[in-house]
């Protein structure tokens, strides 16, 4: 497949002018988008979209190189320091997200899909190992959800395995039939998490189980997004990622609000618990750049079919100039 006329896909290192302008603060990075910096006459206008390699380690290395290159200009800059620092902060955020999610294209490529399936496998294994705690966490949702944990788990695993099989076989019709089940599983996980998020004590005492369920929610959202793209419903794949990003943000906000409203509970939080809690909350925050980046990539792929394949199979950060 080739990239549409009107769009120009280039390796970022081959665009010294773009790099220089990012370094001087004339361009800024906003997620995976390069924009004209505010106050430059074209403030906010898009210069192009960054596309990252499919491989997690290559992405990490390229991001670090880019960040290092940008930071070398920081000392000599007369103006645009704020813009450059913002760009570096974006790169730092993408690095964290890349490591946490094992890639920045995890929802949008076939290779990423396999990684997501494997992660869901691991999460299922951990959930089975912690079935007692999970059962108590689910029980907190109420009697309406009193169906057995094992049945829930079997349904979930069936959905995951079926989706993987149908994806690999390119069986679009079967994949379409799985969409309602994906929604059901996603919303069930989300509702359990939303039930516990306003309960400050849950965020401390049930953190292990809640962490697993949130990991499942994340990877379920990524998987669903991929399946939506596979069946040609890119718009809904895009929506999946944005919804997941919004859900994670809202869940974190509810948890933090509950925790800061309870002084009594705060006085019983140990340093160890607090480290685990903030690490969990940070994780929810740190993967969000990867989600919004991938949502952008889906939109680009719809507009410029083939661009994703070209970008993700390379080993450099690419810039799609629009």
């Amino acid at each position: 497949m080739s990239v549409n006329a009107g769009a120009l896909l280039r390796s970022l290192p081959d665009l010294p002018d773009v790099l220089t302008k990012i370094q001087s603060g004339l361009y800024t990075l906003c997620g995976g988008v390069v924009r004209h910096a505010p106050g430059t006459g074209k403030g906010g206008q898009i210069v192009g979209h960054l596309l990252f390699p499919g491989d997690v380690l290559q992405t990490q290395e390229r991001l670090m190189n880019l960040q290092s290159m940008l930071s070398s200009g920081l000392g000599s800059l007369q103006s645009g320091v704020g813009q450059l620092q913002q760009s570096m902060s974006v790169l730092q955020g993408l690095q964290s997200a890349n490591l946490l999610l094992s890639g920045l294209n995890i929802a949008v490529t076939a290779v990423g899909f396999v990684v997501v399936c494997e992660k869901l496998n691991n999460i299922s294994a951990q959930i089975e190992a912690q079935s007692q705690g999970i059962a108590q966490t689910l029980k907190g949702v109420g009697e309406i959800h009193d169906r057995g944990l094992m049945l829930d788990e079997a349904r979930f695993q069936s959905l995951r395995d079926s989706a993987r099989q149908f994806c690999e076989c390119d069986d679009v019709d079967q994949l379409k039939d799985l969409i309602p089940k994906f929604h059901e599983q996603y919303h069930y996980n989300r509702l359990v998490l939303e039930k516990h998020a306003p309960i400050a004590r849950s965020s401390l005492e049930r953190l292990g189980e809640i962490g697993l369920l949130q990991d499942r929610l994340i990877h379920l959202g990524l998987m669903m997004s991929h399946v939506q793209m596979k069946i040609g419903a890119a718009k809904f794949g895009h929506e999946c990622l944005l919804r997941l990003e919004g859900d994670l943000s809202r869940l974190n906000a509810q948890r933090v609000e509950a925790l800061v409203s309870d002084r009594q509970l705060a006085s019983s939080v140990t340093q160890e618990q607090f480290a685990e809690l903030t690490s969990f909350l940070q994780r929810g925050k740190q993967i969000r750049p990867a989600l919004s980046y991938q949502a952008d990539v889906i939109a680009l792929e719809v507009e410029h079919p083939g661009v994703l394949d070209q970008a993700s199979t390379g080993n450099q950060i690419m810039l799609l100039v629009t």
Partner: protein
Amino acid sequence: MGDQMGFVVPRNRQLSDLLANASSKELEVLADIITDGGKGRVALDREVKSKIVGRRATGTLQSIPEVLIAEIQAFGGNSIVNAFRSGGVSHRELIVDVARELGGKPSDAHDIFDIEQIILDRAVSKFSPHAGILKGAALLAQTAQIVRNLLSPGGSFRGFAAKGSVAGMSSFLTKRVLPLTNPTLIATIAGLAIYQVTAPASRITVPAVIQIARIRKMRFDKDFAAYTEALRACL
């Protein structure tokens, strides 16, 4: 009480840790209570007094928390009872005495933080009855004023001690001293005599304990603010 250092927002920090990290402004008040504004007291060793006054002048009272604590605890809840105790009283004993003296009802279920909260609430109720129920910064501000009043020569504590504490002290002495001494001694220290002996100690311990309670509350609020900020940084 377990090891409070393992908590992010500890309620019951060790006194030494609390005072070693308090502001100079708050510790100066405590130093003034102990030294009677630098003039000294009969029961205060001259060397100890000059050490406290010297550190106050250089803004380094944080370096001698143990000295401040030892002096406050040596006064105990009451000078007569203290005569039968060696080495002063524990902080818990001290605050339980003061809470009761102010009309509070501390129990074994209350931790130090709870008892000090009772003390702050009762102090407002007793010395600023028109202030109503106060919380947060308003409670801290009002109790700071109460401590200042108790320290002033014509302060309300003298009135409070003269009017209200004799009956309380009699009951207190009966409970605390009776098992330690003989009935004849108890009979001889009745009435005004009790007040004359006990009031000076109370004039030190009541404001000192209120001030320590304020310091603990401020530290708790500071720790809680840091906890809140760290959590909000995760958003």
